[in-house]
C-alpha cells in the first residue's frame, strides 16, 4: 500500500501529460475535451475545498463566482473586440482571465464580508441566497442573453497559441490545474492554512489566542472566489458559451459532491472528485437516461460509508 501511495501521483501526472496522444491513437479525440472539463472542474472543486476542507465553511453559493468569472470573459469578448491580437483586446486571455478572477474575487469580498460573520446553517443559507441573487440578476440581463445564455465568438487568444485547438487548450488547462493544486497543497501547511485549520477545529480558542478569525476566513473566501472565477473563465472557453445555469445553486451542489467524492481537505481530492463525478456521469448515462438515480445512490454510499472520500481512503492516518 505504501508503494502504491507513492507511485500513483507519478502515474497520474504521466497519464495526464500523455492523454491527448493516447486518446488520438485510440481514435477517442472527443475525450480530450472531456479531460479538459474534468481539469476545469477540478480547479472549481479545489477552490471550494479551500472553504470546506480547510475552514469548515460549507458554501452553497460557490457557483456564483464560477458563473461570474465565466460571464466576465464572455462579456469582455463581446463588448471589447478591439484590434485582433492586441493584448488589451477583450478576447485576449491575458486581459480576460485575470479580469475574471478579479471580478469573482470582488464579488466574493462583498458576499464574504456579510456571510463570514455567520456560522453553521446560517452560513449555508446566506451563501445560497447570495448565489440565487446573482443567478436572477444574470437571468434577467436580456442584453447578455438572459435565459438563453451568451455565446463566445471564439476562444480567448494567447499570442503564439491556438486555443481553438482542443489539445493546445488541454495543455494550457493542465498547466493551470497543476498550478492550482500546488498552490493549494502549499497553502494547507502555510501560516494561513494552519490558522484556517485551527479556526475549523476551535474558533473560540483561535480567537482567544490572538487570531482575528473574521479576517482570515474572509481572506480564504476571497481566494476561493478567485479560484472559482478562473475555473469559470476556462469553462467559458471550453464551451464557447455561458449561461445563468452555471451559477445555479445546483451547480454549487455538484461542486460540493466533487469535493466529498475526492476527500474533503485532501490536496488532490478535488481532482479525484471531479474525475470521478464526470466519469460516473458518462458511464451511468451510457446505461440509462435515469443516471441521476445512480449518482444519488453513489453519493449516499459515499456519505455513509466513505465520508473521507476516495483520497481519504488512501491518505496517511495522522
Amino acid at each position, binding site marked *: 500500500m505504501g508503494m502504491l501511495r507513492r507511485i500513483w501521483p507519478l502515474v497520474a501526472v504521466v497519464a495526464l501529460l500523455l492523454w491527448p496522444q493516447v486518446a488520438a491513437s485510440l481514435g477517442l479525440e472527443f475525450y480530450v475535451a472531456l479531460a479538459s472539463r474534468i481539469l476545469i472542474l477540478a480547479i472549481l472543486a479545489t477552490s471550494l475545498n479551500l472553504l470546506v476542507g480547510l475552514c469548515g465553511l*460549507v458554501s452553497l453559493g460557490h457557483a456564483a463566482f464560477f458563473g461570474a468569472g465565466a460571464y466576465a470573459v464572455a462579456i469582455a469578448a463581446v463588448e471589447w473586440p478591439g484590434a485582433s491580437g492586441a493584448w488589451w483586446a477583450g478576447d485576449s486571455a491575458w486581459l480576460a482571465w485575470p479580469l475574471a478572477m478579479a471580478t469573482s474575487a470582488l464579488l466574493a469580498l462583498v458576499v464574504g464580508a456579510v456571510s463570514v460573520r455567520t456560522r453553521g446553517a446560517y452560513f449555508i443559507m446566506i451563501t445560497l*441566497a447570495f448565489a440565487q441573487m446573482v443567478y*436572477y440578476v444574470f437571468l434577467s440581463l436580456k442584453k447578455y442573453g438572459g435565459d438563453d445564455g451568451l455565446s463566445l465568438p471564439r476562444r480567448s487568444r494567447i499570442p503564439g497559441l491556438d486555443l481553438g485547438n482542443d489539445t493546445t487548450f488541454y495543455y494550457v488547462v493542465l498547466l493551470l490545474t497543476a498550478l492550482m493544486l500546488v498552490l493549494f497543497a502549499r497553502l494547507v501547511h502555510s501560516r494561513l492554512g494552519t490558522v484556517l485549520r485551527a479556526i475549523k477545529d476551535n474558533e473560540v480558542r483561535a480567537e482567544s489566542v490572538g487570531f482575528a478569525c473574521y479576517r482570515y476566513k474572509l481572506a480564504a473566501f476571497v481566494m476561493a472566489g478567485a479560484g472559482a472565477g478562473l475555473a469559470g473563465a476556462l469553462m467559458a472557453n471550453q464551451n464557447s458559451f455561458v449561461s445563468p445555469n452555471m451559477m445555479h445553486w445546483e451547480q454549487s451542489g455538484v461542486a460540493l459532491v466533487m469535493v466529498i467524492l475526492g476527500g474533503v481537505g485532501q490536496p488532490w481530492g478535488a481532482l479525484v472528485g471531479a474525475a470521478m463525478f464526470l466519469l460516473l456521469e458518462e458511464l451511468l448515462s451510457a446505461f440509462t437516461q435515469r443516471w441521476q*438515480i445512480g449518482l444519488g445512490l453513489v453519493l449516499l454510499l459515499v456519505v455513509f460509508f466513505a465520508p473521507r472520500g476516495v483520497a481519504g481512503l488512501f491518505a496517511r492516518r495522522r
Partner: protein
Amino acid sequence: MSGLYLLEQGLNGLQFGLMLFLLAAGLTLVFGIMDLINLAHGSLYMIGAYLVASFTQATGSFAVAVPLAIVATAAIGMLLEATVLRRLYRRDHLSQVLATFAVILIANELTRAVWGVQPLTLNVPAAVSGSVELLPGMHYSAFRLVIIGAGLVVAGALYLVVVHTRVGMLVRAGASNRDMAAAMGTDIRRLFTLVFGCGAALCALAGALLGPLLAVQVGMGESILILAFVVVVIGGIGSIRGALVGALLVGMVDTFGRAFIPAALRAFLPPALADAAGPSLASISIYILMVAVLFWKPQGLFPARG
C-alpha cells in the same frame, strides 16, 4: 395605483405567505430540533403535488384527492426519515447537505420515471374556480380565498398544538434544548418521526393548494425550497412563530416587490435601465430582505435557542 389594486396584492401576498408558512413550519422544526439541514423538503412538496394531481384524475374529485395525498406523502416522509435521515442527525452539515442533495436527485428522477417529463395539469376545482366580489368593484379568485382560509386554519391549529398541548410542549423543549428533552425521558426517536411526518403532511397540503396556481413539474420543489429556507432563516431556526412572521414578510415583500418595483423604477430611471433592472430587483428583493434581517439580528427574528 388604486386602493383596490393594493388590496388585491395584499391578499396575494397573504396567500403566498401562508403557503410558505406551511413549508417553513416543518422545515424549521426539523432544523431546530434535529439540527438537520434537509434539502429534500422540497421534494416532499413536489411529491404531494404530483399525488394530488394523480388522485384527482383517478377519483375525479379534488376534495377527496387532497387528504389521500397528504396521508400518502406523510407516510413517504416518515419512511424517508426512518431510512436515510435518521442516520444524519449526528453528522456534520456537509454530510447532511450532500445526502439530502442525493435524495433530491433520486426523487426527481423517480418522479420523471413515474409521471414523465411533461408538467402535469392540476386544475382549480370547478366549485371554486370563479371569483368572489369582496368589495364593490373588486373581484378576487375564490380559490385563492380558499387557500387563505386553509392557511389560517392550519396556522391556528399549529399554534394551538404547539402552545397548548403536551406534545407541543415537548416539541418546543426539543427545539430549544435537544439534549435536555432527551434526558427528560421523551421518546425522542418517535417524536422526531412524528414531527417529520407532520412536516411532510404540511408540504403535501401546500403542494395541493399551490399546484393549480403554479406548474406541477419536476424542479418545483427546489425553487420553493429556497424561499422556505429564507423564511426559516429570517424567522429564526426552530421557531414556529418566526416561521409565520417570516413567511408573511417574505410573501408580502415578494408580491409587492414584483408588483411595484418595475413600475417604481420606471418613474426614476431611463426606460432601458428600468426594464433591465426592474425584474431582477423584484426577484431578489426577498434575498435583500434576508441579508438585512441577518445583519441586524444574526440569528433571525425569534431564535428558539437563546
